[in-house]
């Protein structure tokens, strides 16, 4: 009976499309990789690094919201855990290799994700949102009160720059380190995250998360251990968000508990939503959009909260899960259709 691949004509089409997308992706990657050397613009490079760190975090976040269908208001917990892990691993444990530090940060964030995942596994919708919020807020209080003496409270801790495979690269001047080296590390991390998640979310695992999002009862009645997969989803998400936080920690150079606060969670949600939680690339676009918008608003008005609030309000009411990326895609499709008709 399995003679059927050809009848699904769109497989062939999808293949070509994918290749074109792949091509576009490679072009974007190369342009980004060359950008600092070509422009020597430190501000732009820093801004891009900043955006890319949050793009990773927003993509990680969207595993839970966009794919598993659960709104978490506590992802600052994972972002902050990633950040503090970097500081503590470098400062207290003495591991200074970039790759090792990042891997440890992901593992620790994943552990926090497992704990929060298990505790929240039976809640839905707003209860899930409020429970994740409360749990993250507990972590925030822990950091603010400096319980355990690790975080130095609201003044925060400075981060030194990690080395790279034993090369004492941290001794380079700041500009060269951040622009020449670190920018590319973050770029590669983002590319790797995109490729990895692209496959993971299209795999049977990704389909299983979507099953849970669409209909938890049905998924369970199809033999899926729903609770377990919700925890998996949280762990994966936490690891990716933690990576984003860890990368960001080195860039910002100084960490305060603000990164664990619920308003930080709100920003991550905002980014994903702005770009489009129903799309794969939406969160990346959203992180860029959010940070550029904020920088722009800040440069023109002291009332930038208002601007951001208005944008959030409008995006929620008009674009919904499509976000600006989904909206743009629809627009392009429509234009193509019209061209096709003519």
């Amino acid at each position, binding site marked *: 009976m399995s003679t059927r691949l050809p009848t699904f004509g769109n497989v062939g089409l999808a293949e070509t499309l994918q290749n074109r997308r792949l091509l576009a992706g490679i072009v974007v990657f190369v342009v980004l990789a060359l950008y600092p050397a070509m422009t*020597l613009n430190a501000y732009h490079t820093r801004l891009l690094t900043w955006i890319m760190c949050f793009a990773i975090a927003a993509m990680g976040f969207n595993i839970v919201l966009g794919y598993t269908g659960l709104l978490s208001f506590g992802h600052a917990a994972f972002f902050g855990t990633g950040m503090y892990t970097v500081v503590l691993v470098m400062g207290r444990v003495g591991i200074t290799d970039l790759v090792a530090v990042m891997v440890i940060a992901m593992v620790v964030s994943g552990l926090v994700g497992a704990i929060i995942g298990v505790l929240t596994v039976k809640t839905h919708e707003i209860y899930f949102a409020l429970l994740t919020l409360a749990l993250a807020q507990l972590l925030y209080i822990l950091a*603010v009160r400096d319980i355990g003496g690790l975080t130095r409270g609201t003044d925060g801790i400075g981060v030194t720059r990690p080395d790279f495979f034993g090369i004492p690269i941290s001794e380079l001047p700041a500009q060269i380190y951040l622009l020449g080296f670190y920018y590319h590390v973050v770029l590669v991390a983002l590319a790797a995250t995109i490729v990895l998640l692209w496959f993971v979310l299209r795999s049977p695992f990704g389909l299983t998360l979507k099953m849970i999002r669409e209909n938890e009862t049905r998924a369970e009645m199809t033999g899926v251990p729903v609770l377990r997969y919700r925890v998996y989803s949280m762990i994966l998400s936490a690891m990716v968000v933690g990576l984003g936080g860890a990368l960001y920690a080195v860039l910002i150079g100084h960490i*305060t508990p603000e990164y664990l606060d619920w308003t930080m969670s709100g920003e991550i949600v905002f980014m994903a939503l702005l770009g489009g939680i129903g799309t794969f690339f939406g969160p990346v676009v959203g992180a860029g959009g959010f940070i550029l918008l904020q920088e722009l608003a*800040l440069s023109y008005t002291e009332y930038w909260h208002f601007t951001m609030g208005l944008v959030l309000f409008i995006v929620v009411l008009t674009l919904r899960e499509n976000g600006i990326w989904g909206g743009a895609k629809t627009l392009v499709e429509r234009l193509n259709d019209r061209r096709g008709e003519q």
Partner: protein
Amino acid sequence: MRKSRLSRRTYLKGAAALSGVSMTAGCALLDEDLGQETIEGIPDEPFRIAQILFESGPAAFYGEQAMNATDMLVDQINAEGGLLGEREIEIVDRLDEGAGLDSLISDVQAIAQEGEVDMLFSIISSAHVLGVAPAANDQQMPFLVTMPGTYQLFEENPEMDHVVRTAGSNASGAIGAVRMVEQMDDIETVVTIDPDYAWGHDHQEMFETALENVRPDIDIVESRYPDLGETDYSAHVSAIASQEPDLLFSSLWGGDTATFVSQGVDGGLFDQVGEALLIGDTGAPLLRSLGGDMPENVWLGGRAGYQPTYRYDEDEDHQQFVDDYYDRYGEYPGWGAYHDWAGLKTLQEGVERAVSIIGDWPTGDQLMAAMNDISVEMPHGQHTMRGPQAAAPAVFGRPTEDHDFPVDHPLTTDFEFIAATEVNPPTGVPTMEWVEEIEPL
């Protein structure tokens, strides 16, 4: 708020860094032949300052005063022709600390990149300065820090050569308070209340450690840490009142002090305590917002003598500053205003000093170097820089309704002055080590 997006210029500073030019640091710079690094004559364009302060959030209390004082003083300096009488100052940009550390650091980067700003100025939050100062230094962007007190600034980043701080560290307030207590009789029990972040914890720790050395007979029976920006202190008030301590020590500042004191008065707290030492940055605006609620058994003060009544009659400069400020803004200057005054004075002196040594307008590096180890005249006497860090004295006063100023709120009087040498660690000694070894006077 970044009002100016200046045209992008060639990438000068970054390129210099990229090509690995190492910058000569510190005072050594001034002694050498600096021929090619100096700019001939005084530049035509104004000296451009980007000011960093809170325009939003609870600490905007200081931001507003600092902004007011800076606007006023810059106008005055420019009326005389500017720095050295030749080069005007222009505030080209203001960054809101309320936007958070991410934005601050990124904006500092942009400013350094554009090369259209000569110096960063002010800043309030200790958490922010610990992040922004190293970032500015990495960019070789001159940064004159005027307000935050964290002693960790230079102890954590000893290499910074583009940053100076014209405010005394929080040690001067805490140790000043210890010196006050040292002279008091009839004190056996103390309760401390400080905001729950490093500022408060640092103050409490220094106070407790030093007090143990100079007055081992006194017990700190309880230490409380309300949240920064707390709006309801009634639970703390009840708890402290129940202890009936001989002394209450507090580093709460700004609006927090106002709220705490007024709720304390409400709960009868100051009838239950012998003396209160309020060392958070408290000045005239605080007394104004409290109206008639200020109890009499408190000492107000801390680092530097930043009270409009302190040596008002003796010090002409001070009198003029206070009167001008009052004429312009209808209230008396608070600590935020004084801090930025000290900063601008140091800048003026630094420019003069650099020019007198090298004969030319200084580069950013030279200017910062010239501001090291300088001293300027402030109401409390010589305000001395030890290296990049100011050593300020401690001054405390009593609130009084009995004054000749045209306002109906209390001001301070009966001042106690404690010299800078008594309340600051000697150059090169880490603050906490010094505090642990402190001896009775």
